[in-house]
């Protein structure tokens, strides 16, 4: 197992290099930072000075090698736009994203799995049809539409929740989080719900289809024959057997939400990192984008590694050598 993890991490190192190269080239073909940074009435000299100062006058391979050399020394670069170290920028915003994604994940799993199992077990109940309807509609309503509806209903009409922004935060292990105070939570509720809807729908459907397959297996029959409590039957025997796809999606979504939940962050003005990425791409802020992508790739690698380990825990027949 330790070998397995080490090997994976070794592969990831290569991955990070490939990723940085891709992003480097990608940003290069997309837009020219000098053109974006220089003002409307910048002179040719202004542009040249700017390019020289950021090393943008060098050939791309040279720029890339310089970048790698800096990374090795722990320097991820300085934002073109903000003039600040990119890691500072990223880590300042990370807690806001992490907490809202965490809440969304909890909502997604807490509602999705029980609803899915219920539908799987009670195929013909009206409640099942209702769940199926709602989840279908839930994910066919585009995210941005949904966000606005949430704001309209809960903030504008009912006035029970704030429409935008992040509430007060409290210090938790050095992170600024609003998860641990009631007012802060109020601000988190709508964006988290907005992220959670798709998750709930996905988890419900995966759990439902898994249940419909597992429920009829001999071992489930025998487990029922043993007369164990329904809670245990479902919570242990059934759940363990339907979790693999759920874990897969949870892992992928976890990464995606942390990295790319730009729509939600934009509509609710949630000061997270997804927006930072989008803005940085649009402002041609290459250092931020590259550093961000390296971190995100690392995160995905770790999350997927964790998922792979969980597979083996869930199903003892899966073993990695």
């Amino acid at each position, binding site marked *: 197992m330790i070998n397995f993890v080490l090997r994976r991490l070794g592969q990831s190192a290569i991955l990070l290099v490939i990723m940085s190269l891709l992003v480097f080239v990608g940003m290069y073909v997309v837009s020219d930072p000098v053109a974006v940074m220089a003002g409307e009435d910048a002179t040719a000299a202004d542009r040249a000075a700017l390019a020289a100062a950021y090393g943008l006058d060098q050939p791309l391979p040279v720029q890339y090698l310089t970048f790698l050399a800096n990374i090795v020394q722990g320097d991820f670069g300085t934002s073109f736009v903000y003039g600040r170290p990119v890691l500072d920028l990223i880590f300042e915003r990370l807690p806001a994203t992490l907490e809202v994604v965490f809440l969304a994940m909890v909502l997604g799993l807490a509602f999705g799995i029980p609803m899915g199992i219920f539908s799987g077990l009670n195929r013909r109940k009206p409640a099942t049809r209702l769940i199926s309807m709602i989840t279908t509609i839930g994910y066919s309503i585009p995210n941005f539409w949904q966000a606005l509806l949430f704001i309209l209903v809960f903030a504008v009409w009912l006035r029970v929740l704030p429409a935008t922004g992040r509430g007060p935060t409290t210090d938790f292990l050095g992170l600024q989080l609003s998860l641990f105070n009631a007012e802060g939570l109020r601000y988190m509720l709508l964006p988290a719900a907005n992220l959670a809807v798709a998750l709930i729908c996905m988890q419900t459907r995966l759990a439902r289809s898994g249940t419909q397959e597992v429920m*009829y*297996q*001999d*071992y*489930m*029959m*025998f*487990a*029922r*024959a*043993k*007369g*164990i*409590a*329904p809670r*245990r039957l479902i919570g*242990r*025997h059934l759940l*363990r*057997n339907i979790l693999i796809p759920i874990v897969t999606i949870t892992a992928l979504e976890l990464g995606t939400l942390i990295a790319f939940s730009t729509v939600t962050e934009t509509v609710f003005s949630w000061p997270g990192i997804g927006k930072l990425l989008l803005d940085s791409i649009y402002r041609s802020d290459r250092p931020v984008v590259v550093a961000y992508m390296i971190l995100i790739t690392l995160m995905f690698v770790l999350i997927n590694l964790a998922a792979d380990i969980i597979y083996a825990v*869930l*199903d*003892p*027949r899966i073993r990695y050598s």
Partner: protein
Amino acid sequence: MLLTIDRLSIAYELADGRELEAIKDFSLTLERGRIAGIVGQSGAGKSTIGKAVLGLLGENARISGGRILLEGEDIAGFSERQFGAIRGKRVGYIYQNPMTALNPVLSIGEQLIETIETHTDKRGTAARSYAVELLTGAEVSHPEERLTKYPHQLSGGLCQRIVFAIAIAAQPDLIIADEPTTALDVTVQKAVLGTLKRLAAQENIAIVLITHDMGVVSQMCDEVYVLLRGQLVERGPTMQIITAPQERYTQELMAAIPSVEQRRARFDVLDAFEETPGRQRGIDYLRAGTVALAHGDTMLAISNLSKTFTGEKGGAGFKALDSVGFAVRRGETFGIVGESGSGKSTIGRAILGLVHPDPGAIIALDGHPIGQENRQALSRKLQCIFQDPYASLNPRMDAGTNITYGIRAAGLVPRKHAQRLAEDLLEVVGLPRAAATKMPHAFSGGERQRIGIARALAYRPGLIFCDEPTSALDVTVQAEILNLMKELQDSLGLTLVFVSHDLAVVRQMCDSVIVMRAGRIVEEGPAEQVLTEPADPYTRQLLSAMPRFLRSAAAS
């Protein structure tokens, strides 16, 4: 009266909208402390009755008539919740397919202890030690260690004993034992049956024993119900049924029981299977297969075969096979008998390349080490009938496709004939043609086993590794199938490696035999010799433990 079944009828709805009446007007009565046996043809509906008592019939089953009274209360219409109060606590169930009955992702310990904690007031270490006690009672060695294992790490017999332990954990009023000893060697079987009998006698527990082993029936049951195609054909006290069967089917059944006392050329059959053109075509197909080759050459040679399963967390491995070696001659039937868990299936899995043996092992087929040949070519020389027939069927393919998919891919049968061939082969193993379109899960245990047999035969291979191929079959069907195999053997030189616990069958079928215990061969030789003049104490023990169905007793 503890259990009364009154004119019960059960129907399964099939995928195409048709309905199958699995049970018609079946009645049964059972008092505490008594053991009722249900015998009958494979697919007759025995398991269906058992499941009905526990409310475990699938969604597509319907109780179309009759009542099931448990202590006077009609449970036929119970809800899932009401059944919850009965299951495990008042009625224990020993599931027919032990290898699929255990949850693959939960450890044995968890599955056993949760039952204990649900139904008794034992918790924590008390529950654990009771679990160990139960396993010991079920003749499971190293019970502590087994608790941490997962089902796929256990042999079929071990799984069956664990299922047994789970079913009796709460000392229910009624135990439904659906073929509880099919995967057990006779010594263990004796112990397990002994436990059951003791439960009935001492704890006043009623038992419904579903089995096809008449020896078991004669030893265990107070009363016997004989079932054929969903209908009760005869019921009566055990002795009466055995000694003086009234109905034709019962008589056939008794006649078909193989004897360990003497070896005959053929199993006695009284036309259990209908002779149809399809069946004939199927048999012709099988006969037309392999070119008859000279009998007697060594076909399969194995030497120094060891297998160590690596332990958890780098702990010491478990040596499932220890320097096993033997040779199988072409055209013979080579028997492997022995203790459950002694490594019989592992030998098969090693031959088939499903487990990698420890270094040093040599497995040669026709003089060439296996593994160098391509898979397709090998598939026509070497086939397998899996011990767990169900898990080895693709659940998303109907029975017909399961049987012919491989041979179609190998070009043994043109696509357009595949369906007909599948149906023919189903008839060969005694299933109706219509079964071809049913999905694997909708078959009875014995039917699944026969699908597995049909699939293996369809390749017309040179050698078949048969891992307890007929354990779930009643004697009439078993006799038909074993005769067929013998016939193919005679005419084509088919070689069989035959794993079985049924020593009578082994005696009938096998030319040579090895006896295994704890991963080693303890005795080997011609079947006649080993089974009549055993040299090894373990073999002797096996023979003496055999439940005997004494025809002589019947005569007297």
